[in-house]
Every structure is written in C-alpha cells, then in structure tokens.
C-alpha cells in the first residue's frame, strides 16, 4: 500500500504546485510531503527485506527488496532536494532570474520528474520500464533547459538526443529479450517475473546480443563511458537541485534497469558474461573520468565527471559479483547518491555567491559561506572515500572483492584512479575553500532550508560510515536477501 502513496503524492503535488499562488508555501508543502514519502519508503524497505513481499496489482507492479532499496535511495535524495529547492527557488524569484509563474512550473516539473523516477523500480513489465525511463528523460530535459540560456538549451538538446538514441537501442534489446521468450514457446509476456522464471531455457545467443543492446542503451542513461557525453553538459546546466537528482537518482535508475536484465542474463547465460561486460564498461568510465576530473575548470562539470567515476565504480562492483562486490556496489549507489547531492547543493550555494561556474573565480568559500563551506569540506572527504564516511566502506568492500576475486589488475586500476581523483579534488577544492575572498564578493546569509538539507544528507553519510564497520554480518545477510528476487 505504501507504494500507492509514494507514487500518488508527487502527482498530486505537481498539480498543487501549478495552481497554488504562493510559491513559497508550495515549496514548504513539497518538502513536508517528501518527508512523508521518505517515511513510507522506509516502511516499504523494511517490509520487503524482512518478509517475502511481492505486491502485485494485476501483475503491473512488482516489488522486492531490490526495488524497495532503489525507491528508498530516491526518496532520501528527493526529500533533500525538495528542502533545498525552497531556499533556492525563493532566491531566484527574489533576484528576478525567474518569475513567480516559472517557479510554479519548476515545482510541477520537479514532482513529475520524481514521480517518473519512483515509477521505474516499481514496474514489472519491461516495456513499461522502458516507457518510464524515457519519461524521466523527457521531463528532466525541461529542467536542464530551464533557464533558457544558450548553454542550457544546447545541453538540453544534446541530452534529449543522445539519451533518445540510447533508449532506442534499449528498446531494441527489450524486444530481443521478448523474442527470446517468445521462441521458447511459453506464453506471450513482457513481465520480468515471467521471463526470469524461465531464463535458463531461453536461447543463449539471443540473450547475449540482447543484453549488449540493453547495456549500451541504458548505459547511455547511466552515464557509463564512452556513452557519457551528455552527462557533464546536462548536469552542469540543470537547475542545481535537479543536478543532484540527475546524478543521485536518475543514473541509478538506469543502473537498476541494467540489473534487472542482468539477473535474466546471470540465470540464462551465466555470471561470467554479465560480469565481464560490467567490468569493461566500469573500467573505461573510471579511467576516462579520472582524467577529466584532473583538468576540469568548471565546478559543476567537475562534480559531473566525478559522477561518471562513481558509476564506473558501481559497475565494477556488480561485475565482481556476489556477495562482496554486489553489496559494495549497492551500498555505493546509496552513498554516492547522498554524498553527491550534498556536493551539488554546496556547489550551488558557492556559485550563487560568486555568480560564476569557473573554479578559478571561486576563492575563500569558507569565509563567504561558513556553514556550506564546512559541509563542502566534509563532502570532499566523504566523496573521495575517507573514513569515517560511508563511501569509504563501500569502496573498500569493492576493492576487497576485487582482490578476493583475483582481479588484481582491476583492483590496482581502481586504487590508482581513486588516488588521482583524490588528488584532483583536494587540489581544486583546497583552492576554492580556502584563500582570500575576491574583491566585490559580499558574504551573503545562508538559507535555513539549505542547512536542513545538508544535515539530512550528512546524517546517513556519517551514520552508515560508522555503524557499518561493526555490522558486517548483517550487511551480508541483507545482500543475500536483496538478490533472492
């Protein structure tokens, strides 16, 4: 039943935001509702992990522990983004960047975007999964091009075209999966539960080819290199709370789709095939992005390339396999989502003070924004994998998995790239955080809602990082639960 609320609330909020006159109140209602959604998602996760929960509305909706986990991740980030939006949009309206009406449109699009992302993990039908993912692209394209400047419209166009090509290939893959199913002579269906049940008798060759299309198609959406070219543009030009959603949730939903098909492949063809492909794409993403992180001049693009790097790490984790690689990758999905959102929010605060994206123009954030500056510093250490933050745990799990697996090359490469990214981040952010304020920059007050959003995000980063050290056994138990479905 929780799922009805999780899916229904954004739809109602979208209409509400459009009709309400007072946009600040709309933002506050938004944030409160997403808190309710978050609590519901937590209940759902608990129910799905503890009991064999398979809710099913006419076979349309299918929920297991894995989908509940993705919905939960999405709900944490959307709650924080809703909180952050209040202050952010308010400021934009006050400064005359957007009109009051546009603020209403923003909240409507925000809610529709969230709806489409909550829908993705809840669906059982693979065709509808495709439709939902395409829907996320179409809605978020408006949010990428929201400011209507030359750069943002260009980014939106690239985003919509590259992702559409990707998604066409994904549809081709989906059709081939359904062909493999049709050839096997069982009933005609596109439901994941039906196909996964008979995966072992499906034609191996068709499955292999179909999965390549799926991987390239949804991989484009997930930001895996070399199909990542839309990502830095879209992330850097989108409205900042949306950048966090794109990086934290949207990429993960595409990974979710790949995983769903991956289960069929693991059952039908064997783990080797799935694992090697994921490892390959993961390593390419990692190497390409760490190079770009090093030479980046634009703050938001820097964070975008770091997203590609983390998606690469997640992909490597899945490629290394059960149980350590899988649980590491899943944890990393959550950890990266919250940490990257924190970074995007603080970066947005800095950009709104300095009015520039350029790293060289941003100096002395600590003096201009004491609270956000501290958060940014913590975020940098969390993102680069320092203890006691949560990303440290998931990265170390993946590295251990690589060593246990005998993939010394991958482990070595992972460590080298993490080192490069760490160095680059310390270098770039050290310059930005410390140093003297440039002339003419007045330290502005910080928004209360933004502070709340930071604390909401910081809590799981710290809590997971500390608690998980003592709870490895539970972790592995949950991992096994997650992959029963």
């Amino acid at each position, binding site marked *: 039943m929780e799922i009805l609320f999780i899916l229904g609330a954004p739809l109602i909020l979208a209409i509400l935001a459009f009709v309400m006159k007072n946009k600040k109140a709309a933002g506050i209602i938004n944030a409160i509702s997403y808190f309710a959604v978050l609590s519901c998602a937590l209940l759902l996760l608990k129910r799905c992990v503890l009991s064999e929960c398979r809710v099913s509305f006419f076979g349309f909706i299918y929920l297991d522990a894995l989908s509940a986990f993705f919905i939960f991740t999405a709900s944490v980030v959307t709650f924080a983004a809703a909180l952050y939006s209040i202050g952010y949009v308010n400021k934009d309206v006050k400064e005359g960047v957007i009109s009051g009406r546009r603020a209403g449109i923003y909240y409507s699009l925000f809610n529709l975007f969230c709806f489409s992302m909550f829908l993705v993990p809840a669906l059982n*039908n693979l*065709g*509808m999964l*495709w*439709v939902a993912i*395409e*829907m996320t692209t*179409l809605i978020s*394209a*408006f949010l990428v*091009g929201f400011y*209507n*400047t*030359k*750069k943002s*419209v*260009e*980014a*939106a*166009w*690239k985003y*919509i*075209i590259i992702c*559409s*090509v990707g998604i*066409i290939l994904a*549809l*081709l893959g989906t*059709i*081939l999966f*359904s*062909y493999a*199913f*049709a*050839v096997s002579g069982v009933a*005609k*269906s*596109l439901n994941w539960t039906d196909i996964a049940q008979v995966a072992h008798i499906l*034609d191996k*060759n*068709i499955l292999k*080819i179909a999965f390549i299309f799926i991987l390239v198609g949804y991989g484009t959406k997930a930001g895996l290199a070399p199909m990542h070219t839309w990502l*830095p*543009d879209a992330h*850097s*030009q989108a409205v900042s709370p949306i950048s966090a959603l794109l990086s934290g949730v949207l990429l993960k939903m595409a990974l979710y789709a790949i995983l769903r098909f991956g289960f069929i492949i693991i059952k039908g063809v064997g783990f080797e095939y799935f694992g090697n492909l994921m490892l390959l794409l993961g390593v390419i993403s990692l190497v390409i992005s760490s190079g*770009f992180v090093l*030479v*980046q*001049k634009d703050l938001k*693009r820097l964070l975008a390339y770091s997203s590609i790097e983390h998606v690469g790490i997640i992909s490597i984790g899945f490629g290394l396999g059960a149980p350590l690689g899988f649980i590491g990758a899943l944890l990393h999905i959550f950890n990266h989502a919250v940490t990257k959102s924190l970074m995007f929010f603080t970066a947005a605060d800095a950009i709104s003070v300095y009015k520039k994206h350029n790293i060289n123009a941003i100096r002395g954030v600590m003096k201009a924004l004491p609270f956000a500056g501290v958060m940014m510093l913590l975020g940098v250490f969390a993102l680069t994998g320092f203890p006691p933050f949560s990303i440290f745990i998931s990265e170390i799990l993946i590295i251990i998995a690589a060593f246990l697996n005998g993939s010394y090359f991958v482990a070595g490469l992972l460590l080298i790239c993490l080192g490069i990214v760490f160095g680059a981040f310390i270098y770039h952010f050290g310059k930005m955080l410390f140093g003297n304020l440039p002339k003419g920059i007045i330290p502005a007050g910080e928004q209360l809602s933004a502070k709340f959003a930071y604390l909401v995000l910081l809590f799981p980063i710290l809590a997971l990082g500390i608690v998980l050290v003592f709870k490895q056994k539970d972790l592995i138990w949950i991992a096994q639960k997650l992959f029963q479905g």
Partner: protein
Amino acid sequence: MQAIILFGVLISTYLMVIAKRSTSLIRAFRYQSFCLFLATLIIAFNEKQLDLYIVAGLLFVIKVLAIPRYLYRFLNKIKANEDLGLFINAQLSLLFALGFTYLAWVFARRLIVSDYALAAIVPAAAFFMVLIGIFLMIFRMTALAQIIGLLAAENGLFLLASTVSGGMPFFVEIAIFFDVFVSVIIMGFFIYRINKLFTHIDVNKLSRLRG
C-alpha cells in the same frame, strides 16, 4: 501483398537517405509510416484481433497524419533554411545504406531461429530501418533531421516487435505510441527555442559546452 509492402518500406527508407531538403525527408517518413500502417492492417485482418486494428489506427493517426503535419507547420513557423546540411552527400549515403541493408540481413540471419531462411527478411528490414535512423541522426546537421531519424528508428522497432515477438502487449504498445508522440512535441519545442536563441537549427554549430 506483404512483399510489396515490405518493398515500399525499403524504398521509402532509401528516399529518406537521399533526401536533401527537410520537406522531402518528412514526406519520405510519411510514406514509410503509411507502409507500416498497411502491414499492420493486414496482420490485423489475418488474425482478426481488435487490438491490432486499434494499433493500426493509432499508427495512421499519429505517424501518418499528426507528426508529419506538426513538423510541416513547424517548418513554416520557424522559417528555417530548407537545406538539411549533409555531412555525407546523397550518393555516398546511398552506398552506405546499401551496405547497411546487407549488414542488417547478415545480422538477422544469424539472430533469427528458424529453419525457413526467408523468415529473417522482415527483421532484416527492421534492423535496416533502425540503422538508417541512427545514421540520419549522426550525419545530418539540422535538428529536424535528428527527430526524423529517431522516428525512423522507432518505426523499425515497431516492425521488429510486430514480427518477431508477435507484437508488444497492447498497453505497452499504446504507451510507446504516446511516448513517441510526446517526445516529438518536446523536441519540437526545443528546436523552436534553439531557433529563437541561435537563429538557426544547425546542431553542428552548437558547441559552447566542451571538455
């Protein structure tokens, strides 16, 4: 009968490849969609399923009538240059297209499990359409050609789905139609904005974001 329609699909796809102007590209797309509509209608007639009649009807309304008309009106409105801007000239494109035809055939022969060699013909045509769609998106400069390329690829997938897996489930088919329609409208909206901001729709010149 089916062979004639398939032939029509192929010819209209070749027409898309050699089109140099936006209007002729849209017209070729309309022919292609019309052939698909006829093919679906025949399948519906043979299998006597109401679902398929509805799908055929939707195909006609959306892809033969609504989308081409929307694109024509749109072209008039933005008064953009008619020229498509070919990276690769028409003759060479045609050569590529012939190569793709063969490639699609080889791929389909390998993939389709059947004792009957000709069973791969329709899937081959479908793969060919997808390839040409992506080819148009890459090697034509205007934003409009990219939309048409996407639609052509989608047409190919429709053909593939209706032959190899006996069609998608009905509501999925409807959802995909709706999705395609909405995406064309949204892309049109963005072209309109691009035209307003940059005073052209040449995507090759959109290069502000680098690195």
